[in-house]
């Protein structure tokens, strides 16, 4: 589904991640893990096409880097804060991609939008403004909007940030539903191990000091890793050098 080869990302003269190579298989939940400042969100922006890499390549479905604007989106994106448009209701936010990219009549658009909101448990909030929603509701509404055009690939940036454990677990369950029941490939950027390890199929771990991927594998493989940085990350301890 996604092939990343020798990718260097960052801003001119200041790469945050170098020589990164990994693949995401179709139908899996894939996590990009790492401490704060390790380049997870930067990598996320490059994966979804918001920035150009300094070197290397990204391919989506074997056809080259994602191209935004001008073409129908081939994947959905949920940003960390939800990024719902504040002057539209929740329902209008979800309906917008359908209105832009389909020829469906308005009634059909609204029906599909309601269906998406029902999927995330927010049908009752369709007439509310984003400012009226809680953090968890914002993220679920953002996922509904990201799913509006039935993408087979979904990117989520820190979905559990700012959420209580119960709401975070609800969001995790939603991700599992999207993946297992709808066959959506889910790529999640997170540092919340407690939330993600129970649902993810494979992950990569980024290291901010070395600016590269230091481990790849399933959660079980990563937790058994002998690499001191990976071990410190998964065991939530200060590294032996005394750095934290």
């Amino acid at each position, binding site marked *: 589904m996604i092939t990343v080869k020798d990718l260097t990302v960052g801003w001119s003269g200041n790469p945050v991640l170098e020589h990164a190579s990994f693949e995401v298989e179709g139908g899996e939940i894939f996590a990009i893990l790492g401490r704060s400042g390790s380049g997870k969100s930067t990598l996320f922006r490059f994966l979804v096409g*918001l920035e150009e890499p300094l070197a290397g390549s990204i391919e989506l479905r074997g056809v080259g880097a994602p191209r935004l*604007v001008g073409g129908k*989106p081939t*994947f959905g994106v949920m940003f960390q804060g939800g990024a719902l448009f*504040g002057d539209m209701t929740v329902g209008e936010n979800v309906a917008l991609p359908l209105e*832009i990219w389909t020829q469906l009549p308005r009634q059909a658009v609204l029906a599909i939008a309601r269906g998406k909101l029902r999927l995330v448990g927010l049908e009752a909030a369709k007439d509310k403004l984003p400012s009226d929603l809680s953090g968890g509701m914002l993220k679920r509404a953002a996922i509904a909007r990201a799913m509006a055009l039935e993408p087979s690939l979904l990117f989520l940036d820190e979905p559990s940030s700012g959420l209580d454990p119960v709401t975070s677990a609800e969001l995790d369950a939603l991700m599992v539903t999207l993946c297992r029941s709808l066959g959506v490939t889910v790529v999640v950027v997170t540092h919340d191990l407690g939330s993600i390890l129970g649902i993810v199929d494979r992950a990569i771990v980024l290291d901010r000091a070395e600016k590269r991927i230091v481990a790849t594998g399933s959660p079980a493989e990563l937790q058994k890793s002998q690499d001191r940085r990976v071990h410190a990350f998964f065991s939530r301890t200060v590294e032996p050098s005394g750095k934290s």
Partner: protein
Amino acid sequence: MGDAVPFWRAVLDAAKDQRGGKLDIDLSGAKVVDGAIMSLLVELRAELARRGVSSKLVGASHEVEPIVQLYEKTEDKAADGSAKSTPRVGLVERVGRGTGAVADAARRLVVFTGELAFSVFGVFRKPRRTDLGRIPLLVAQAGTDGLPIVLLLNFLVGVVMAYQSSNALRLYGANVYVSDLVGISVTRELCPLMTAIIMSGRSGAAFAAELGTMTVQEELDALRTIGLSPQRWLVVPRVAALVLVAPVLTLLGDVMAVSGGGAVAALSLSIGPRAYLSELRGSVLPSDVWTGLVKSAVFGAAIAFIGCQQGFATTGGASGVGRRTTAAVVTSLFTIVFIDTGMTVFFRVFGK
């Protein structure tokens, strides 16, 4: 913490002549030590270390020992921090960074202008990808909401113009020409400028704040991932709204300004309304009015462009939004006067 000041003076005094050797700092007399005192002690030990003095905290009681141990763990970081203090940036480097920042801002402006021009053409090909439905709301916000202040201020402009000229006109018995002076100056210059200044403060600032907030909250990125161009979706409707609204407000402002002048003419110069209007009709040409309206439309486009561009360039959260909003107003005002100068010369040269 209330004892920190005398404490700090006392320890500095005791340590000021220390150079090399060892120094023990005896805490046995301290029953309670708080974080402020410990922080000062850590700083003192770091300063002593720089002078080559090896120091220790000794004699801490059972109650004080935990906080002493806690702060001793931070001493390595305090020493590192002082050793790695930020070097001063030289003048040449500052000039270089400033030049780079200006070049970067110019590059972003050129990119923004190009993308907007591309978007304007794109509206006619694929209008659904522009939020054209937003234009009536923007017109209402910029137009009807701003109308009272535009009318009032332009009325006062007419009053001021007539008053300032009344003495000179009366001296030469040229009272009746107050309508020429007020009519031509407000239609060609003052009403377009005054209306633009008001719009800059209201609409320009509002656009910068709104789009700046959208930028920091990643809503512009969200638009891109939905396949929409932020320029086409957000900027084009705002430019269109102000281009439509500005001439209308200016025209209404013209009416109020000449009314203000007429009021002064009647009260101060003994020029009745009929004589005032008759002279006005003879002196103010249609070209004077539409010159002002064309200027207004250009001002409106510039204000919207600058407000949106500043919003798109916002970084740094809420304080960044504030900075860009201020910059939008200041830049708009400067640009309006600059454009007005150019257009005035242009119209005069080409005989309008």
